[in-house]
């Protein structure tokens, strides 16, 4: 059934889609926001160590559902497997109103200036498609600030001498650190490093009609029962709806973008919450489905003018899939570290983000969010007893006495880490599913090993008498930090969208989400995804004139 024409359809109500919908609606465009998942509210909040978006052994509450959304994953041995969203390897983020921003750990990082200019600073990396962004940190600075203000960020980064220049301070002060955080802060200071309070999408004081964090131990992977964690679902999406210009339709699974005879986007076709096929005509279409599903959707929209998918004339759609690898080190202490004060991850250093000898990039290093007992069991060192009375004794002697640090290593994008349409496996709606294949670049593991060394130093300085490390392997990463599959660039032959996130081949089609990152920085990506969304939306609103574009 064809619906009434609107100015803009935004596909996906996650980090980017929520921002875009609000900006366009405030700019006076009529907007339909389509989300395949559902609304969750803080009333639905159930803190469950086994069923959450981080530990999903008994499933995951924030979608997509296991029954209808398989993917095919090729592992490093060339074997492929059909996996469900809650299973390891799926590379899941979330699917609900707000997507990952409902259950994220909520670190709100600006990338550093260098992250946008990796190729110029470090030169080409053999085997990698590493490239500069076509925009700089300074293009994004005002939009970083807008994201921090409108979504709501607490923290204190003044003491980080490596940060990119910023005009204004963060809108909220940091939460006080827990014991782990203060121990690490002091140790980093003794090492001559530069510790500071991690910026977080979290109310440290009452703000925007919602209360402050009450510091529980179930934060990352869970929604917030007191609504103190700030995502798009409790900020920009309600604002968008309040303008009266935006309609949110949940349970709507977009199956393809329809194009007209000139190759411009004309409408999107989706299955509504009762599985009826609907057609929504629009003047412009914004794809914000996150890196894996956005690439898949462009490919699913193949047609006469676009035999390999929209924007895919030069075979760049789905390439350069990135996420982050996390080298981590845990250490045992003689004193009790655990004080039951969430969310954790309060302190970080950026001393090793860039400028490391013989390395292309590095990583921000931070204490970890609180680990649940079961998460700890899964990560115990090889020498620890796995079962029996000795296991219980080990748990009693280790759990409350451990600290853990690590950080997201710069990815070196590769041509072969990619999303394709699987030739055989279909989802519930009969659409070819995403097939994920390829490997990480080996340099990522080299950086990870260097970072592990720094993590060990940090924990030992803090007083750990024994440490153990986990170093990422070469398996492709995507998952919660997925990015890169519809690269932004000036040259249509080597990128999918231009500097305004506009698909080179179709001027009224935009991809705005993590997909456009040429590289994913050495930080968690959500704030950058939001900043790019503000930036790209501002350009749409500025150039928008009725149904055409001002030139």
């Amino acid at each position: 059934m064809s619906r009434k024409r609107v100015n803009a359809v935004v596909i996906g109500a996650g980090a980017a889609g929520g921002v875009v919908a609000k900006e366009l609606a405030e700019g006076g465009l009529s907007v339909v926001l389509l989300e395949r998942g559902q609304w969750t509210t803080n009333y639905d909040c159930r803190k469950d160590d086994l069923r959450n978006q981080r530990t999903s052994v008994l499933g995951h509450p924030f979608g997509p559902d296991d029954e209808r959304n398989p993917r095919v994953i090729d592992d490093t041995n060339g074997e492929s497997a059909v996996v469900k969203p809650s299973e390891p390897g799926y590379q899941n983020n979330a699917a609900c109103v707000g997507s990952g921003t409902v259950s994220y750990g909520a670190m709100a990082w600006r990338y550093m200036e260098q992250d946008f200019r990796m190729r110029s600073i470090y030169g080409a990396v053999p085997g990698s498609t590493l490239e500069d962004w076509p925009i700089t940190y300074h293009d994004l600075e005002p939009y970083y600030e807008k994201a921090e203000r409108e979504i709501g960020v607490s923290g204190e980064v003044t003491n980080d001498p490596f940060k990119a220049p910023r005009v204004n301070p963060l809108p909220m002060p940091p939460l006080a650190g827990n014991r782990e955080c203060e121990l690490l802060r002091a140790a980093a200071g003794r090492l001559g490093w530069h510790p500071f309070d991690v910026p977080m999408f979290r109310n440290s004081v009452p703000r925007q009609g919602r209360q402050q964090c009450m510091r529980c131990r179930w934060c990352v992977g869970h929604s917030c029962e007191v609504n103190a964690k700030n995502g798009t679902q409790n900020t920009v999406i309600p604002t968008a709806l309040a303008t009266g210009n935006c309609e949110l339709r949940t349970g709507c699974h977009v199956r393809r973008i329809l194009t007209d005879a000139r190759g411009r986007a004309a409408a999107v076709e989706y299955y509504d919450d009762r599985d009826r096929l609907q057609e929504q005509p629009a003047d412009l279409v914004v794809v914000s489905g996150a890196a894996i599903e956005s690439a898949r959707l462009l490919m699913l929209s193949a047609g006469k003018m676009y035999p390999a998918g929209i924007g895919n004339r030069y075979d760049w759609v789905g390439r350069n899939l990135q996420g982050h690898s996390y080298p981590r080190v845990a250490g045992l202490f003689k004193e009790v570290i655990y004080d039951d004060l969430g969310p954790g991850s309060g302190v970080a250093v950026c001393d090793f983000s860039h400028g490391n000898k013989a390395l292309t990039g590095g990583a921000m290093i931070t204490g970890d969010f609180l680990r649940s007992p079961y998460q700890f069991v899964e990560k115990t060192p090889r020498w620890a007893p796995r079962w029996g009375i000795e296991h219980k004794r080990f748990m009693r002697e280790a759990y409350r006495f451990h600290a853990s640090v690590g950080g997201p290593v710069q990815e070196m994008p590769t041509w072969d880490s990619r999303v394709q349409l699987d030739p055989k496996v279909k989802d519930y709606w009969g659409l070819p599913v995403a097939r994920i294949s390829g490997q990480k670049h080996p340099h990522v593991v080299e950086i990870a090993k260097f970072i592990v060394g720094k993590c060990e130093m940090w924990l030992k300085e803090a007083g750990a008498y024994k440490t153990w490390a986990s170093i990422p392997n070469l398996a492709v990463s995507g998952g919660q930090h997925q990015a890169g599959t519809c690269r932004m660039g000036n040259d249509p032959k080597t990128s999918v969208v231009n500097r305004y996130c506009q698909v080179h081949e179709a001027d009224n089609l935009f991809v705005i989400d993590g997909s456009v990152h040429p590289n994913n920085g050495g930080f968690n990506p959500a704030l950058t995804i939001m900043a790019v969304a503000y930036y790209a939306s501002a350009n749409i609103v500025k150039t928008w004139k009725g149904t055409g574009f001002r030139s």
Partner: protein
Amino acid sequence: MRNKWDPERRRFMKATAVAVAATTISCSRSGRPWRFLTSAEGAAAVAVCDALIPPDQYAGAVAAGAVVFIDRQLTGHYRNYAKLYRDGLAALDRASQEGYHTALAGLRADCLTELLKKVEKGEARASGWSKSQQQKFFSTILAHTMQSYYGDPRHGGNRDEVGYRMLGIPATPVRGRSKHDLTLSEASQSSAEKRP
């Protein structure tokens, strides 16, 4: 007016709920203690789980509800493991018969530990039980037992939050605090209460 969240009242409500649940169970499930496991499999699982997390000053896996947890999940999220358990528990019993001439459920604790150490490495002898099958079975039941002991009590394990208490961390507070916001109207409160 008496507060809706008066602890006395809550205790009373809890007691009624348990009584109701008990009647339903006794009506519908005559004799069979488990949803998925047979009685023999249940007995075998009891032996294995308590070897993996034995009782000491804190409850062992079984008293903490491990078999309830596993049995429940085998008809739910762990449906796909049903065959692994069925075959694995039977093979483990064969290994016990062949190696110790007794059924698994009656095996002495030290012998059971010895046997499980072999299964962990894939080196137990039981006809038709391959190395990789043994290792898969062991790592699966170990992971599930750990989940039951340290996971959320709502799934049937971690009874009385023994997993949390043993580690010295506080038990789960009442969840969903905004439901208990007393500024809400009476009507919206009772509808919030009904949510699962």
